[in-house]
């Protein structure tokens, strides 16, 4: 480990912007990833795994067993409320496909409150009133519910909803202390307490968990045995623990009121940072500094919190967008299992989304206002209307300042403020329940704030952490608050990352809080002048006493003068200053974990940014500072900086890429980690763009594997997938048990003659594809003649490829071919034999010679593929996954002149051309709107031929019309750029390119990333192997540009699909190892 402290890039990575370079951290970042973090993962039910069921026979439901699932080991009256989920929306289209689906298991998991809350009428709960001895057993309780919760969710059976659940108690729970005698008497109180506490909680509709008739009868029986209704005793949740009210007394709209101040809160959306040109970044920072400068005179509270990635929401989205997933094969993971695995994977890698809030404390309230509020509060009325109206007018100026380019802030909503308050009180702890507005995060007004009552705080004298305990869930968390100490000069867009965005490199969530006073030019100058006078007087003192003044005094005075000059003569932006306190909160499940994380964070900051993070004492006050409205902890570690340095903190920077409705393909690997989802049909279906995707990488960069993985994932979703893989390893995909019945391999080298007959490779447009009427008719005619022209062009090109290059170079050859091709009707039914016959009939020796040459080539078995008619039903739309291979074909090296190619290599060229056409031809068979995917490997052979370019252009154009996602893999981006189809490309993946700077520049051009800005080194550092380790690199990295133009480094990770990587492994050793287990290509051919 070399400790670079000197300014400058680490050795070996000269100009790479650190933001996008490989992680130069020596310790493994992955350490924290293995286990789900409580602050991200599921507290009761949060971010749970949504389970989807493909059609299945109805299962006999077994009686509930007390499974030792950790998600249920806590007895809380609120447990069901948080775990409860709505029935998944079933789209009408799918309803038919899944009509015999019994219930969505998640609903069962929810064990809806009706059942739980109906204990007297539930004879299914065998042990009713008497609490077993378990309550006192301390074994289960305090374990945080979080990590194991997702596991529990896969259980299709209902979790124990009865006393078995109730039997384990958290020691911290109020109910434990107060309600013991009550539970022994009769009906368990939590059921009663829940509605009492949350009257606003919407009653769940009967989700069909228990058949209604059944329930009615049981309740009748219950009533029969107990004629006199026993009223459950009222449990008073009164506790005498000390509690302190927050300083905030009221939330109104986006304002919060404390007795003396009012704060207007704004939501700052995430901004893109990685892979942007420096000029753009500087413009962004300048705009933000101007906005800060515009807030001179106010105190700001910049707060960043996180929200766990809603994996279940994503799963629901993808399930909704998947109209007909691939039918399940018994004994293999079903569609539901597939989604569950993906969600588990998502939860295990701790993805969190940042949320940035900015509070502007903008008014000292008048004495009258405060008094009026105090009086009104006693009558439960709150802040007076007049004051609020007055403030409403005042805050409009902030909307204007903050809403402009730069921060683009918008007013927060009250639920967001509640969320922020809760997250601040329960700092770094698991968030409660699901809160996403898309699913029903129906937190009613005030619910979240009520939950703050459950968070207990513990401290140790001179301790370095604060312990927080949520007595409702039993979750225990430790928080260490670090303060930003001395900072060295930073070069923000060029070399360093935004200094409050930087913490996202570490794989656990952190919270940030900055309390800053913005000083306008007058204030800051006065402040500075005062300081300058003090320095000068000290210098004078030294002179009077006849002692040499320390040289630093003179230096500092000089600097103060320069700054003072800037302030008086420069723009307001340059003179405004941000004086304030910046804190980072690090959480952990245990004290040791928390301190270890804090240590790593301090180390990271000091090494990479040269910011020294301090870990002061008095942690409880520091932690309190995160809560909006609370006082500042103390005056230590105040940082005084120009506003542009504060703007460069940029905690709202983020690096998202991809859509949020596709398959999970990995995570971003740049400055922060976010999951990456890719739906290859998103460009066509939503963005109305072409579906052409381009993959560029050196050999071994992972192109084929990514292609195969995308093909697999698409096939799982029922997309018709055709993969062209000349070298053949992707054929093993068809052997995967879940795909096997729906997949077929077409090996061209062993196919019947006529398979690649060029005329039939270009489909004739159908009249039905065009609109009715004259305009449609005209378009149709144009399309038909275009198809004919394309056929002629393709046939000419194929003929040119078939004849020896010496002959092809002669001018007469092209003329003769054109002449012959013109005479053959360019319909699908025509064949190459017709062209040969026409050539032979020409009264020209050269023509006859050409005909003979073509017939010569036809003697080779492979060349027979071009002659004759294609066999019927060659590529029907039946198989979901079709892999076209050319096993045993030797591909030529394009760098060698064609003259030196062997006959076999020369034949490979037309074969590849036609095979590309063949792969796409299949997609024109079915309906236009159905989703199709074509993956074409080795597309660089298309370059240099007219028909190649026309092919790609046609593919890109047709992709929208036919809902066809086309993935084209090539080793050199120049091929794609040379074909000039870049404007039609929607998704780009660029893998490792280390050998050739020029190729790297071309790749950057394809990504539309500035060239010669140091990003070439980023491409070279992708998937960089650790030379110290002998193991193979387990992942591949790409730089990805999505359809919306966002560029980000991503790490492709499809390890959650069981067995997929084994089948996609293209290394020789793996192929040899798999030979015994996996079937060889020949066995797979259909």
């Amino acid at each position, binding site marked *: 480990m070399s400790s670079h402290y000197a300014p400058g890039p680490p050795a070996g990575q000269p100009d790479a912007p650190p933001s996008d370079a490989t992680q130069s951290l020596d310790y493994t970042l992955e350490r924290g990833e293995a286990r789900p973090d409580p602050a991200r993962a599921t507290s009761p039910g949060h971010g749970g795994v949504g389970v989807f069921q493909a059609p299945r026979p109805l299962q006999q439901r077994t009686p509930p067993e007390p499974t030792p699932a950790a998600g249920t080991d806590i007895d809380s009256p609120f447990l069901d409320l948080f775990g409860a989920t709505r029935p998944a929306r079933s789209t009408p289209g799918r309803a038919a496909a899944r009509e015999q689906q019994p219930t969505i298991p998640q609903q069962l998991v929810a064990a809806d409150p009706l059942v739980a809350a109906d204990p007297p009428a539930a004879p299914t709960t065998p042990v009713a009133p008497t609490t077993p001895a378990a309550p006192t057993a301390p074994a289960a309780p305090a374990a945080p519910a979080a990590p194991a919760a997702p596991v529990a969710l896969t259980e299709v059976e209902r979790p124990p909803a009865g006393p078995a659940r109730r039997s384990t108690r958290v020691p911290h729970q109020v109910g434990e202390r107060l309600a013991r005698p009550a539970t022994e008497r009769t009906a368990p109180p939590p059921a009663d307490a829940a509605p009492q506490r949350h009257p606003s909680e919407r009653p769940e509709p009967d989700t069909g968990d228990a058949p209604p008739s059944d329930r009615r009868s049981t309740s009748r029986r219950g009533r029969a045995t107990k004629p006199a209704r026993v009223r459950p005793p009222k449990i008073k949740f009164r506790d005498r623990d000390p509690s302190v009210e927050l300083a905030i007394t009221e939330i109104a709209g986006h304002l919060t009121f404390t007795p003396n101040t009012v704060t207007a809160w704004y939501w700052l959306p995430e901004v893109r940072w990685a892979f942007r040109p420096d000029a753009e970044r500087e413009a962004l920072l300048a705009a933000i500094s101007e906005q800060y400068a515009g807030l001179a005179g106010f105190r700001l509270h910049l707060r960043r919190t996180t929200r766990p990635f809603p994996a279940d929401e994503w799963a629901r989205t993808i399930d909704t967008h998947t109209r007909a997933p691939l039918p399940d094969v018994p004994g293999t993971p079903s569609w539901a299992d597939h989604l569950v695995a993906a969600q588990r994977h998502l939860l295990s890698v701790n993805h969190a989304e940042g949320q940035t809030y900015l509070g502007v404390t903008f008014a000292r309230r008048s004495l009258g206002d405060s008094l009026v509020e105090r009086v009104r509060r006693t009558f439960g009325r709150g802040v007076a209307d007049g004051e609020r109206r007055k403030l409403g007018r005042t805050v409009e100026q902030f909307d204007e300042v903050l809403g402009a380019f730069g921060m683009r802030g918008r007013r927060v909503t009250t639920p967001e403020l509640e969320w922020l308050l809760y997250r601040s009180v329960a700092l770094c702890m698991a968030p409660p329940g699901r809160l996403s507005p898309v699913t029903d995060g129906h937190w009613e007004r005030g619910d979240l704030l009520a939950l703050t009552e459950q*968070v207990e705080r513990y401290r140790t004298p001179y301790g370095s952490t604060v312990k927080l305990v949520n007595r409702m869930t039993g979750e225990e968390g430790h928080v260490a608050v670090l303060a930003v100490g001395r900072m060295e000069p930073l070069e923000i867009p060029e070399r360093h990352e935004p200094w409050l965005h930087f913490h996202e490199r570490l794989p656990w969530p952190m919270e940030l809080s900055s309390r800053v006073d913005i000083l306008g030019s007058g204030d800051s100058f006065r402040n500075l002048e005062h300081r300058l006078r003090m320095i000068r007087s000290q210098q004078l003192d030294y002179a009077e006493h006849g002692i040499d003044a320390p040289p630093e005094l003179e230096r500092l005075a000089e600097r103060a003068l320069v700054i003072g000059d800037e302030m008086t003569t420069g723009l307001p932006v340059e003179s405004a200053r941000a004086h304030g306190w910046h804190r980072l909160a690090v959480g952990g499940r245990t004290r040791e974990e928390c301190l270890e994380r804090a240590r790593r964070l301090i180390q990271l900051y000091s090494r990479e940014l040269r910011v020294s993070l301090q870990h002061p004492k008095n942690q409880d006050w520091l932690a309190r500072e995160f809560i909006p409205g609370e006082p500042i902890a103390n005056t230590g570690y105040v940082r005084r900086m120009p506003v542009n340095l504060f703007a460069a903190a940029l905690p709202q920077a983020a690096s998202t890429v991809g859509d949020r409705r596709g398959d999970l393909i990995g995570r971003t690997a740049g400055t922060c980690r976010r999951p990456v989802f890719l739906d290859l049909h998103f460009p066509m279906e939503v963005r109305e763009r072409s579906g052409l995707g381009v993959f560029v990488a050196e050999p071994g960069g992972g192109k084929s594997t990514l292609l195969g993985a995308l093909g697999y994932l698409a096939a799982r979703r029922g997309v018709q997938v055709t993969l062209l893989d000349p070298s053949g390893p992707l054929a093993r995909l068809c052997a995967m048990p879940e795909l096997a019945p729906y997949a077929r391999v077409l090996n061209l080298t062993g196919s019947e003659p006529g398979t690649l007959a060029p005329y039939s490779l270009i489909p004739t447009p159908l009249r039905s594809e065009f609109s009715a009427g004259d305009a449609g008719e005209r378009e149709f005619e144009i399309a038909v003649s275009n198809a004919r022209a394309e056929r002629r062009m393709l046939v000419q090109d194929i003929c040119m490829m078939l004849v020896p290059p010496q002959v092809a170079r002669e001018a007469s050859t092209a003329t003769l071919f054109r002449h012959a091709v013109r005479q053959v009707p360019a319909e699908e039914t025509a064949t190459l034999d017709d062209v040969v016959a026409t050539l032979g009939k020409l009264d020209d020796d050269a023509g006859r010679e050409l005909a003979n040459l073509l017939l010569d080539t036809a003697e080779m078995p492979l060349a027979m593929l071009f002659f004759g008619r294609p066999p019927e039903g060659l590529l029907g739309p039946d198989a979901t996954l079709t892999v076209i291979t050319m096993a045993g074909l030797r591909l030529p090296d394009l760098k060698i002149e064609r003259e030196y190619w062997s006959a076999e290599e020369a034949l490979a060229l037309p074969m590849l051309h036609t095979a590309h056409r063949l792969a796409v031809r299949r997609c024109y068979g079915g309906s236009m709107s159905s989703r199709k995917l074509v993956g074409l490997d080795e597309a660089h052979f298309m370059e240099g031929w007219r028909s190649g370019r026309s092919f790609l252009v046609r593919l890109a154009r047709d992709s929208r019309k036919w809902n066809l996602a086309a993935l084209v893999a090539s080793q050199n981006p120049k091929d794609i750029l040379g074909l000039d189809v870049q404007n039609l490309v929607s998704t780009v993946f660029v893998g490792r390119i280390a050998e050739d700077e020029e190729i790297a520049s071309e790749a950057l051009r394809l990504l539309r990333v500035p060239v010669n800005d140091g990003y070439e080194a980023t491409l070279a550092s992708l998937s960089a192997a650790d030379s110290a380790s002998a193991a193979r690199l387990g992942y591949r990295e790409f730089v990805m540009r999505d359809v919306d133009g966002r560029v980000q480094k991503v790490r492709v990770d499809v390890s959650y699909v069981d067995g997929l990587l084994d089948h996609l492994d293209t290394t020789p050793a793996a192929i040899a190892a798999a030979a015994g287990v996996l079937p060889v290509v020949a066995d797979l051919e259909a």
Partner: protein
Amino acid sequence: MRLRTDDDIYRARLVYLGPPGYTLPVHLPYAQYGLFILLVPLYMFIHWLVTLQVELFPAWEIALAIVTTSFVFRYVDPDRPARMVIHTALTDWRRTREPAAEQRDPRLVGSRIRIREELA
């Protein structure tokens, strides 16, 4: 864009060299003198509480004040003003009296905050 804080200007060490014409042998920051001057009457007051007498030359008090000041300023640096050091010492010292290693702080409760969806 090279960005730096203004902190170094505020980090200048300002020391008292002595009255004009006489240079003290030790140069201490002004803040230390300030703290010392505050501490002496404090210790005198404590002494008075105990003995109900006021001494003309509070030798013990001065000695204690010097020790306390130097002790406090051991932890003071430009980022940690004396105020913060004393505050931390007081808050945490006050609570070390608890026998338990860990003690509960008051919970911070937000349930009584009024919420209005709209401002006006």
